C-alpha cells in the first residue's frame, strides 16, 4: 500500500517519517529513525522489551502502528538518558545489578520511568505488578525491583530505604 507521512514527537524532537501503513511503531523507530535503543523481542506483545512511553503511558511499540502516533509524543530509552553519564534510574539499575545481558533493559527503564513518574511512592508490590509485563531471563527480577525501589527518591517519592525500614520510620 502507498506510504504515509507521519509526524510526531520523538524524545522531545519533532520527527517526520514516511512509512508503509503496516509498519509497526518499533520498526519505524529502529529502522527509519535509527533509534536502536528500543529492542524487539517477541513481536507479539508478551515480552515488554519494546516498551516506549506514549503521552506519559507505557505501551508496547510492537502492538502499535507507526501511523497511530500521528501528533503524539513518544519517549524511548534514548530520551531518558542524559547526554553524559546515567540517569538516576539507570544508575540504580547499574548499582543493583538490575541487568545482565541488557536486552530487556530499555523496556525495563521506560516501564519503570512511566511508573515512577506517575507513582513515585510505588511500594514493592506495586512495582512488581506494574513491571509484570516485562520479562527478564537473566536477573531473576529481585535486583530490578531493588533498583526501581531505590530510584524512587529521584522522582520525589519515598526515601531509598528498603520497604520494611520505610514502614518502621
Amino acid at each position, binding site marked *: 500500500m502507498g506510504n504515509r507521512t507521519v509526524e510526531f514527537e520523538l524524545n522531545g524532537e519533532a520527527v517526520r517519517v514516511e512509512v508503509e501503513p503496516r509498519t509497526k511503531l518499533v520498526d519505524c523507530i529502529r529502522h527509519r529513525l535509527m533509534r536502536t535503543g528500543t529492542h524487539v523481542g517477541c513481536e507479539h506483545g508478551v515480552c515488554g522489551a519494546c516498551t516506549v512511553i506514549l503521552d506519559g503511558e507505557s*505501551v*508496547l511499540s*510492537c*502492538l*502499535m502502528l507507526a501511523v497511530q502516533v500521528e501528533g503524539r509524543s513518544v519517549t524511548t530509552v534514548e530520551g531518558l538518558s542524559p547526554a553524559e553519564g546515567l540517569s538516576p534510574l539507570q544508575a540504580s539499575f547499574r548499582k543493583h545489578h538490575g541487568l545482565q545481558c541488557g536486552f530487556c533493559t530499555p523496556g525495563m527503564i521506560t516501564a519503570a520511568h512511566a511508573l515512577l513518574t506517575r507513582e513515585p511512592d510505588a511500594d514493592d508490590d506495586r512495582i512488581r505488578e506494574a513491571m509484570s*509485563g516485562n520479562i527478564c531471563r537473566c536477573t531473576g527480577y529481585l535486583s530490578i525491583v531493588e533498583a526501581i525501589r531505590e530510584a524512587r527518591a529521584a522522582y520525589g517519592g519515598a526515601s531509598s530505604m528498603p520497604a520494611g525500614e520505610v514502614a518502621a520510620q
Partner: protein
Amino acid sequence: MKLPDLDYCAPASLEEVVALLSANADAKIISGGQSLMPVLAFRLNAPSVLVDLGRLQGLDRIEIGADHVRLGARVRWIDIERHPALRTAQPLLVAMIDHVAHTQVRNRGTVGGSLAHADPASEMPGFARLVDAVIEVFGESGPRELSAEDFFLGPLETVLEPTDVLTGVRLPAWPAGRRWGFQEVARRRGDFAMAGVAVCFDDGTDGAVHDMRAVAIGAGSTPVRLSGVEAFLEGRVLTAELAEAAGATAGQEVSPMVEDAGEADYRRALVMTLTARTLKQAAGLEQE
C-alpha cells in the same frame, strides 16, 4: 512477525467507519489493537484495510447513571482501574478487570475490543454475560442493541456483522449490598486465565440467596453462564456444604476447549474449585 500488507484509515465519524467497512469486505476495525496486532503479526488474519476508531470522539466515556453504567467502546482497562467512582458503582467489574493483562496492554486495550474479540478466557465478556449487559452497536441501518446472552457465538466469534461497530456497553446498576466473588487461575498474574469463575447474588431478608448468577471463563467456546448452579442455589441459604455441591454442579456445565484432554479435565476441576471458593468468598464463609 511483520504485518501483512494493508491500508489504514482513521475516520472521524461512525458513518465513515461503516462506509469503509461496507466498501471493503475484508476490512477490520482496530481500536486498542492489543488482540488484533498479535493476530496480524502471526498472520492469522490479513485484512486489506484497518479502520482505526482512535479519532472518533466520545467513545471513551464512562457514564454512571441511576439505572446503569455505560462504558464507551474505547474505554481502556486503565481508565476503569483509575476511575474514582467505578469501584463502588460496579465493584465486581473492577475486580475482574484488575486481572486483565499487564500494564502496557492495560494502557491500550479497550472494553469494545475485548467484547468484539470474544476470547472465551477474557474477563469483560464474562462480566457482560454475568450481568446481562446490553451491547450497543452502530451498523449500516444505524444504532441498535444486542443482549450479551445472544452476542457470543464461539471463540473469537460474535453476532456482529462485518459492517458493525461496537460503540459501548450498558451494565445494569449494581444493587447496594449485592454480594460477589471472583477468582481466576492463570500461570502468571495478568496472563490469560486457564479458568475463572464470577458469582453474584442479592441477600434476601430471609437470609437466602436471590438473583443468583454465576459465569465461567476459559472453560468453553464462549463465557458460560452456570445456570445449573444458579437454579440449585436460588432461594437457599448458602452454606459451605452447598457451595461445594454447587462446585460439583458447575463441573457438569462446562466443556473446556483445549487440545490436550488432560488439560480439559484440569480446567473443569478448576471451575469446580473456583465455583465453591467464589461462593464462599461472596457469602463471607470460612475458606478451608
